[in-house]
């Protein structure tokens, strides 16, 4: 567990060694993905899911609200991006803006209904709302295209000053996604390590006490929910570009559960970087195990079950275990 005393009051510089490692990995991925036998598109997928997972973990790991319906906001972002391209204008920033806006609005609305709940009741209600969105996406056939979803969503060109980049090229698209993911990661890290992040953790540890200290718990919960929905929406917009389609499947309980699994397996409960490890592990499992056996999901599920049983702190918790100080106390996690 992250304890309050482990976190410095002010985060200081975000450029710690894990951040350096992360940004370096993100920036150099196209150079080594192909040589180690993987493919370019995998990098895009991983970067988008890392974005989604890091935003989700603010809610899941930091404030301790266990949402099982978060895929809905990814889906809303994807649909908003697609609908903007089809009905308004073929525009990159307009589409991404619409994706973030739509997911933020949905998140703010649902967050307002959920923020006075805690524990399992929050989880159950989040499933309920997630299913509501998923079901609507399937049934509003004339808007969302039903079960097939929106197909043929274009990837508009990126224009910076006088330069124009064609994002239909997967390499160029990767750089674009990686830049956004890197930037948002910096912002989220700064937030998590600011007084704001401290309050979130105080709420997770003891909500009643946090409210007695004078924090408006409801507003913090609502703000965190909305923020993580907004990040999910951005990830959703990018996802719609990557897949060049938006479909209800990403909003299903299955997908929402997968992101919870990824974050937990990686160790989102104990570290800011847990979700990154979790996403990497999932996609490695999918591609490496998936290459060996059809039933890779069975093995991934078994691994997850064993992990919850013996080490719910996830991979990040394992790594921290290795870094214990000689006196047996865990190393400070503030910047890790």
């Amino acid at each position, binding site marked *: 567990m992250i304890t309050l005393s482990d976190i410095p009051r002010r985060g200081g510089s975000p450029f710690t060694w894990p951040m350096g490692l992360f940004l370096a990995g993100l920036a150099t991925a196209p150079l080594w993905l192909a040589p180690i036998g993987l493919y370019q598109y995998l990098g895009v997928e991983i970067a988008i899911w890392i974005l989604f997972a890091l935003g989700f973990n603010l809610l899941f790991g930091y404030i301790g609200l*266990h949402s099982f319906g978060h895929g809905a906001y990814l889906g809303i972002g994807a649909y908003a991006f697609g609908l903007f391209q089809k009905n308004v204008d073929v525009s990159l920033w307009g589409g991404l803006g619409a994706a973030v806006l739509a997911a933020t609005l949905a998140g703010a609305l649902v967050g307002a209904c959920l923020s006075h709940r805690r524990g399992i009741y929050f989880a159950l209600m989040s499933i309920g709302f997630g299913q*509501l969105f998923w*079901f609507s996406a399937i049934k509003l056939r004339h808007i969302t295209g039903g079960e097939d979803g929106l197909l043929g969503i274009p990837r508009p060109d990126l224009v910076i000053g006088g330069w124009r980049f064609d994002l239909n090229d997967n390499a160029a698209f990767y750089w674009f996604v990686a830049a956004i993911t890197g930037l948002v990661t910096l912002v989220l890290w700064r937030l998590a390590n600011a007084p704001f992040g401290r309050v979130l953790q105080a709420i997770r540890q003891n909500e009643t006490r946090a409210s007695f200290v004078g924090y408006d718990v409801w507003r913090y919960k609502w703000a965190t929910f909305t923020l993580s929905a907004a990040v999910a929406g951005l990830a959703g917009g990018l996802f719609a570009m990557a897949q060049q389609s938006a479909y209800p499947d990403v909003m299903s309980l299955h997908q929402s559960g997968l992101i919870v*699994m990824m974050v937990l397996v990686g160790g989102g409960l104990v570290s800011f970087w847990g979700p990154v490890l979790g996403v990497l592990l999932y996609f490695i499992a999918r591609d490496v195990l998936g290459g060996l056996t059809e039933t890779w*999901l069975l093995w991934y599920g078994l691994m997850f079950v064993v992990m*919850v049983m*013996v080490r*719910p702190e996830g991979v990040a918790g394992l790594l921290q275990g290795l870094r214990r100080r000689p006196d047996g106390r865990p190393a400070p996690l503030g910047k890790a």
Partner: protein
Amino acid sequence: MLALLPHIVNGLTLGLLFALIALGFMLIVGVMEVINLAHGSLFTLGAYLALSTIGADWFAGTGFGSWWLGLPVAARYVVALALGPLLAGAAGLLLELCLRPTYGKAPLYGLLLTFGAALVIEEVIRLVWGTGEQHLPIPAGIDGAFLLGGLIFSTYKFFAAGFSIVAILGVWLFLERTPYGAIIKAGAHDSEMVRALGYDLSKLRLLVFGFGAALAGLAGVIMAPIWGLRPHLGIDVVIPAFLIIVIGGVGSFWGAVIAAILVGLAVGVTGAYAPAWSLLSMYVLLVLVLGFRSRGLLGRKSALEN
């Protein structure tokens, strides 16, 4: 109003079926405060095991197999109706053993573990029985349809609804009128005192979970002829089950039954006007009920709120 009557009848039968689905889920949540997300998968597993029992999948080649397949469907169906839930219950026992490290921790871990277990069970089903849709045979006596007041009703649905009433009453009698039920309820109420009185709590939890899983399997066998059998059926089942528990209030037996019937009626009546949206009505019901009563219709305070 008269035009609505068949939809109300349909809604009521559907409600009773929903109650049967929620029964095992409710038992586990009420007594052990574990949200068993694997409930739907155990339901599906029970149904598939019954299918294999009737079809003699694994022993068709043996002498016993050919004798077995010579028996009438009704006899095989009755055996499958017992064997499917029993084996699902056995899987539940195994799952409870895996759950043990999560007791005493946040309820999230139980939820996560059963979610993982649901994934594993679903994959196992895919592996063993394939991904295609299958059909569970039923005896001729309860198959077909009958006319009532100029309308056609499915005989099997009425059999299933009647079966649900028997199962609901059976579980209620077990909980309320037997010493075992008293111990189980006491365990839900104050586990420390039950332990102090000398009852083996871990054995109790094991049995309750197994019983809940067996009820899930039983619901699976009963529902399979109506809903069809596919590996990802579990998710369609666990969602209504949990909705019903939340609407009815965690820990309340009759709350869940009332909620199930309300959900059934809502789905049935919406089905009359907007069939495409009928499943959505249960979420609307959830939001409405929880908007006014945050613990559901008859809910009590529970440890799950922390």
